[in-house]
């Protein structure tokens, strides 16, 4: 996305709960507290995530509401970083290091403990040289109507987002489903749920026209 340009592939959520009276100040503090921060060391390999401004993924301060709150719309992005060492390259380099060690020590095989040390040293060496894989997903929150758009359909990203949103603001996000369109028509919703897929195969007289449950 999506928030300001490009196509929209958004998952919609309902924010469960009411906003505090001091929403703006509260949100500034919470966004800053959960903003994206770079890892302290270059060899950090765990996934890191946090909020960044929608305008630039390097902007992580939310003190100025004019860059993230537009009337009722709060907009920011979830940034997820993870360093990934190419597995095939790692295996090949480790094999070379083991060959060098065997030659230098006049041994046929690398002892288990030495192999573990070589592996760890190589991992640190490559992590230091590797840039993280960076993912950005834009978020738009209609704070008046209480819905949020998250511009991704990835289940993994959605889970990260719902957890981070809850950790930041304390609100549970309820995913929108098509049945919400008929929330005021419970009998209609119940009949939809109890029906099956409409089968358009030609059938002999007297046969059923509807399949069973489609799960």
């Amino acid at each position: 996305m999506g928030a300001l340009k490009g196509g929209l592939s958004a998952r919609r959520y309902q924010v469960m709960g009411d906003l505090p009276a001091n929403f703006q100040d509260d949100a500034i503090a919470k966004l800053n507290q959960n903003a994206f921060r770079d890892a302290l060391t270059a060899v950090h390999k765990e996934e890191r995530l946090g909020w960044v401004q929608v305008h630039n993924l390097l902007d992580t301060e939310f003190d100025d509401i004019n860059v993230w709150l537009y009337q009722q719309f709060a907009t920011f992005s979830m940034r997820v970083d993870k360093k990934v060492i190419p597995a095939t390259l790692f295996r090949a380099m480790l094999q070379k290091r083991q060959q060098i060690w065997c030659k230098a020590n006049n041994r046929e095989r690398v002892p288990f403990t030495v192999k573990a040390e070589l592996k760890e040293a190589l991992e640190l060496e490559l992590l230091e040289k590797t840039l993280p894989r960076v993912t950005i997903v834009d978020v738009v929150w209609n704070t008046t109507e209480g819905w949020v758009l998250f511009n991704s359909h990835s289940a993994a990203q959605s889970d990260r987002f719902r957890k981070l949103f809850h950790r930041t603001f304390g609100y549970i996000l309820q995913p929108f489903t098509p049945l919400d369109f008929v929330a005021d028509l419970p009998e209609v919703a119940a009949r939809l749920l109890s029906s099956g897929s409409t089968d358009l195969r030609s059938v002999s007289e007297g046969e059923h026209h509807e399949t069973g449950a489609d799960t």
Partner: protein
Amino acid sequence: MSDDSKAEGVPGGPETETPPHIASDFYLWLWFASEVGRGQLELPDQAPFSWWVDDRLSFRPVGEDKVHAVLTGDNPSTTPEARAALAGGKVLRDVRLAMRRDDREYSVTLRGSNVSISGAKLPALVKTGDPAEILYERMFLYEELHWMVGTMFRKFAEERASDGWAAFADRMRDWAAGRGI
């Protein structure tokens, strides 16, 4: 900001999928209504809007989520292959629609069992300039798109839940088989 713990549960629980037959029947209704009907909804005190199948249909077998056939290109919904897929027992998994209201034209894929909005092209009027203006406009257009999808779904749901659906399905069956309706 902190490292994410995958062991930590998602507050509110895992996302649940709506039973897939609902979306498949909805997509079928949208297709049939645009091919055979007018593909238009007129509502009291509201500007009408219209829709038609755009350039992509994907099919799955009943009971599976995996796509088994995809038809793309110009007017795939009018091809014999598309109707043959239905007559062969497949159901729709995704449909790409074009929609128009007043002079605003949208293109969107409705995807999967949750009728997710995917790859939506909004009729952007303001393309550069003040981010606030761009955001307001995009959210207005998104809301209109969401409203149109919801309006179509409600219309479908009322027909699907009515006693007249069996007769309606017979008409769709004749149409899928290439018989006159």
